[in-house]
């Protein structure tokens, strides 16, 4: 297993080197430290910010919005995706249209969301939902289609009911693809909510990052970036870990 070790080691080395580069560039004045505060300063500010109740409540606001949008988009999009994939005719009709919708950058609709919902919770959740739903629909449809006909035939030949087939064959068979879909959906969802916060909002971590930027508070701005990046990476890695545990299901 020395191979895996060297790979991890190399990876850690790259990350450390990047942080070291960041630190040196700033510390020795290669880049103006007002433009690029050093890594150590940034992490110090991050620790400081996390103590503040206003930052914590901003994080809580964003987390609530993200989770609400996700909790609405995943089952709703999943159901639509399942129904589309189950009906051949419907799939043929609707699929290209979904691709059209998916290819449009969602951000151009943001002003409309503000006009319809006003500035607030529902605007941000609504936009997060809108940013996520298409990818959920498309990946669920792909997941349903990934179920091998052989598995369905086996289930039928042993007398499985529709519910048994759904629960014992469709669901476990789709799970690896679904997890990947969930992971990618979350990236879209987070992007949507934070974008909405940065564009027009009174609270949330995206709003904070935007206003730190406007006020030229580089330390806080970078600390905010690190914060959001860490949360996003953590969620991604958790799902990826579950994915690898069932990767052999794909065969």
């Amino acid at each position: 297993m020395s191979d895996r070790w060297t790979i991890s080691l190399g990876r850690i080395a790259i990350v450390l080197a990047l942080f070291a580069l960041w630190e040196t560039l700033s510390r020795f004045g290669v880049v103006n430290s007002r433009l690029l505060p050093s890594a150590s300063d940034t992490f110090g500010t991050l620790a400081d910010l996390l103590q503040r109740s206003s930052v914590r409540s901003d994080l809580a606001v964003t987390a609530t919005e993200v989770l609400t949008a996700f909790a609405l988009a995943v089952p709703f999009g999943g159901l639509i995706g399942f129904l589309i994939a189950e009906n051949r005719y419907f799939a043929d009709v609707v699929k290209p249209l979904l691709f059209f919708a998916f290819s449009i950058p969602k951000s151009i609709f943001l002003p409309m969301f503000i006009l319809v919902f006003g500035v607030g919770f529902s605007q941000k959740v609504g936009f997060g939902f809108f940013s996520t739903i298409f990818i959920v629909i498309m990946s669920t449809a792909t997941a349903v289609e990934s179920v091998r006909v052989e598995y369905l035939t086996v289930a039928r030949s042993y007398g499985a009911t529709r519910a048994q087939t759904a629960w014992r064959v469709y669901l476990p068979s789709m799970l690896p693809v679904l997890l990947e879909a969930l992971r990618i959906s979350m990236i879209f969802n987070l992007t949507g909510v934070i974008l909405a916060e940065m564009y027009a909002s009174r609270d949330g971590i995206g709003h904070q990052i935007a206003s730190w930027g406007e006020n030229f508070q580089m330390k806080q701005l970078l600390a905010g970036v690190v914060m959001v990046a860490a949360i996003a990476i953590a969620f991604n890695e958790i799902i990826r870990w579950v994915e690898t545990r069932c990767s052999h299901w794909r065969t």
Partner: protein
Amino acid sequence: MQPLANVTPLRPAQRAGAIEIRDVGQVFRTAGAEVVALSQVSLEIKPGRFVVLVGPSGCGKSTLLMMLAGLREPTSGSILINGTPITKPDPDRVGVVFQEASLFPWLTAEENVEFPLALRGIAKAERRAKAEEALKLVGLEGFGKRHPHELSGGMKQRVSIARGLVQDPPVLLMDEPFAALDEQTRMTMGDELLRIWAATGKTIVFVTHSLTEAVYLADEVVVMSARPGRIVDHLQVSLPRPRTYEMLSGDVFGSLRDRIWRHIRKSA
């Protein structure tokens, strides 16, 4: 049926099924066109026989097997197993072994074998006991906790056979079960199947492309031809049992295989 001399049955040979196929036809309708997959197929299979269906691609042998499994209804005619028509899947009467990769990769070997029992809500302990017995029968004792990706191609098909036998059905249907295996494994699996058959006394209907496999395994070989699918010959294989590798080069074996080949060449 003559049991093999060197085999001690794990269970007394019993519960073999009689199959009657009467004037069965199957017509597929695709985009306005009608394709006659099977036409006027009649066949009688006595309990405990090992019957192999061979024929060129498109001769309807797999379709016939799917109808025996109740997965497809005949357009005309009827199929009776132990005197009762089969119109939908009936795991009490028929077990099916599919081509490679029909095991569920998310379940362990024993969970795969238990699957048909789980569908009927049989309690966990009873399920596990029956699965263990079936795995032992196919020579996979101690492999129950493995997932399919941890098993070789031959072992996977043993699990499939165990799954087909776990409910002790009188008839076992096998759709090209060894097609994806290498030649060596295929021969071994053939011998294993004959051992399992001798130990359980099931009626087996086996579909294959391999003429050698057909003659080696069968009591009777049913030869089919395409467009429309129908039976063109029905041979009794008089070779004694146990079958041995040496028989493959014998005159009886050769002439039987030649006879089948001539039918197939004609219709292909």
